[in-house]
């Protein structure tokens, strides 16, 4: 190995790091969540509501949409995320009327339309539950890069699944991913940004 090549390599490396640091400081959108504006996936869906009507993001133009994947037999994460969504809607005051919360089931086998309607209404009557058959559910999850799988427990099964909630702007574009531990205040902040 030629020791003379070392400084060159190091300076190249340092140069690369400086470039990365520079990217960090660029004024990007002021979201507190994960900016998905440039994500490779767009979050398309074509699912049925509790009345059997087919729904796509186009049905909610003019409103911000907060979409969460889950299942009603979930004891912890899903109710926590939906309770936060209800809190966020209240926090947004009058703007809350421009927020549409969607709950997409990852467990269409057990989650009947009636159960889904009762479930989402228990959090906020304005929330809408959407579902599809097993194939459509998998396709929709893939469209959001959402991971899920059944895990047997006791006499039944539970599900592992991704916990990001997704926000669309009033033009129907996927914009922000909201982490499970993100406070309601921060979610409300990001959704307000989408309404400006």
């Amino acid at each position: 190995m030629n020791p003379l090549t070392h400084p060159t390599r190091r300076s190249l490396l340092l140069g690369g790091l400086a470039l990365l640091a520079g990217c960090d400081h660029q004024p990007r959108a002021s979201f507190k969540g994960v900016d998905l504006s440039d994500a490779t996936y767009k979050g398309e869906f074509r699912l049925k509501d509790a009345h059997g009507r087919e729904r796509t993001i186009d049905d909610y133009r003019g409103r911000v949409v907060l979409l969460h994947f889950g299942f009603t037999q979930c004891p912890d994460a899903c109710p926590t995320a939906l309770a936060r969504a209800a809190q966020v809607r209240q926090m947004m005051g009058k703007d809350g009327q421009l927020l549409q919360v969607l709950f997409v089931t990852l467990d269409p086998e057990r989650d009947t339309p009636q159960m889904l309607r009762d479930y989402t209404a228990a959090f906020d009557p304005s929330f809408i539950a959407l579902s599809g058959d097993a194939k459509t559910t998998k396709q929709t999850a893939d469209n959001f890069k959402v991971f899920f799988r059944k895990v047997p427990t006791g006499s039944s099964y539970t599900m592992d699944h991704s916990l990001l909630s997704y926000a669309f702007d009033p033009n129907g574009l996927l914009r922000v991913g909201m982490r499970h531990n993100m406070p309601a205040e921060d979610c409300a902040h990001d959704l307000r940004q989408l309404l400006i």
Partner: protein
Amino acid sequence: MRSSLIALAALLSAAAACAEVSVQDAWVRATVPGQKTSGAFMQLTSTTDATLVGARSPAAGVVEIHEMAMGENMTMKMRAVPGIELPAGKAVALKPGGYHIMQLDLKDTVQAGGKLRLTLLVKDRKGELDAIDVELPVKPLNAKLH
């Protein structure tokens, strides 16, 4: 009336026999018709080293101790665990995002404002098993947690 008095007496005697574990802020989440599962949450403090090894409820076919863990890519994993350690004098929280007691095969809808009976099974250092009866208030699905 008579049966509820007997139940109350049973609760009181159970509480007296197992006074070393205190249960605080216990609650369970309501369900909607058709929903067969619900999580119960609480804070447990044992005066001596002990382990919560299980639970049962007349309202549920199966009761398990679960732990929620966040894996890679914000993936939530829920797993049954054999027990939860209760170190002497330390308050151990069973709360959303961590441990919960999972009711499976619920026989009826769990109504907000009602109560759910649960028996906690705690093993002490000598390996002796104690049963602690608790009545959990049922909170609505959209209960704020913080």
